[in-house]
């Protein structure tokens, strides 16, 4: 075993880690935004708002992420008529896929806000969007935080799947180095540790947040 292969290629591996983190962060923000829209839409009473949201959420959640990644990788060039870079196509796939899971978190968060809050908000003559914005969502967000962080950890780990369409993120970077240097053991142990440090750190952070928020109630 020769662990020198790690420091020798550290620059390339760190670049991969950078792509992984960027992909995870951008996808997190955008999929959360999509999740809020789809989550609220699912709670709507009007069927033409409610049904598309249900269809989107249930369809995406029944399919493996890897299929969604392939979909966008093949479909976007067909629809737009020009090739798209791997990173962009992976990003769109992640946003669409995680958006469905975020939507369920948002829905659960909103439903956890006591019904009396809605009545109180409506009785002070707030419109429905105002009520959502100023009364329901802030409280729902607090209840959602632990699940959101968990979902972010899942998303962070899932970015390794961008490997499959050739995005040079951490896993792809490691496999490239491993093929060149023929040192699979060292490299895969190294990236396993790298993923672990981030994911475990995030899960501790979520525990911390949880404790702090539950004190305030």
């Amino acid at each position: 075993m020769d662990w020198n292969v790690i420091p020798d290629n550290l620059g390339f591996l760190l670049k991969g880690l950078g792509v992984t983190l960027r992909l995870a962060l951008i996808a997190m923000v955008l999929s959360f935004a999509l999740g809020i829209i789809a989550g609220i839409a699912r709670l709507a009473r009007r069927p033409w708002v409610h049904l598309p949201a249900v269809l989107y959420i249930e369809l995406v959640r029944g399919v493996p992420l890897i299929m969604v990644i392939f979909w966008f990788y093949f479909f976007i060039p067909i629809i737009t008529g020009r090739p798209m870079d791997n990173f962009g196509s992976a990003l769109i796939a992640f946003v669409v896929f995680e958006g469905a899971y975020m939507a369920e978190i948002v829905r659960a968060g909103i439903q956890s806000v006591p019904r009396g809050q809605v009545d109180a908000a409506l009785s002070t003559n707030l419109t429905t969007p105002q009520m959502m914005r100023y009364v329901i969502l802030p409280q729902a967000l607090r209840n959602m935080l632990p699940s959101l962080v968990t979902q972010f950890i899942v998303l962070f780990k899932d970015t390794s799947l961008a490997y499959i369409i050739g995005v040079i993120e951490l896993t792809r970077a490691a496999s490239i180095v491993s093929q060149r240097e023929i040192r699979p053991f060292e490299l895969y142990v190294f990236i396993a540790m790298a993923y672990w440090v981030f994911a475990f750190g995030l899960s501790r952070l979520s525990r911390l947040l949880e404790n702090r928020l539950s004190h305030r109630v």
Partner: protein
Amino acid sequence: MVQGVAATLKLSGLAWLQALVIGLLVGALRTLPWRFLRAIGTVYVEFFRNIPLLVHLFFWYFAAPEVLPQAFREWLVEHGVEFWSAVLGLGVYSGARFGEVFRAGIQAVPRALLEASASTGLSTAQDLLKNSSLALTIGVAELTFMTRQVESYTARGLEAVAAGTLIYLVLCLVVAALMGRVERRLAIPGLIARGLSPEG
């Protein structure tokens, strides 16, 4: 593609069994009164849960055989190392997640929740089914792999991917329906139907 479906099911089934055994063991360990045994369970769960599944598969396929003796490695290659690496990777990873489900089940008050957790443990089977799609990366000819294969033979990417997706959807719905039946059978009358959360 039928071959792919069979491989997907076989893979998910075997990995599910392995994960069930590991999960029961780890979950039970984490509820024991001895600190040392509890720590082993916790380390297992925290260690395996926080590493991407894909990295697990690569590790078991590319890296782990390296430390084995040469003769054993050759034997492995002859006997379909891709498939068993995939089963091992999926099982070890899902075992950590099942472990958490069982722990919650054992710790929560009486039998009612143990049974509820059994049914959640089963619905993670759906995740396992979908996760088995990653086995394509190490060359197991499961459904996603076959989809790609069909696509490169016929150059009809759209149709192949659409068919693959549809099959996954159907499989997931079937698993969900089966688990729903299990859940209803194990349910304490009235508890699930009223939609009560475990805490009441």
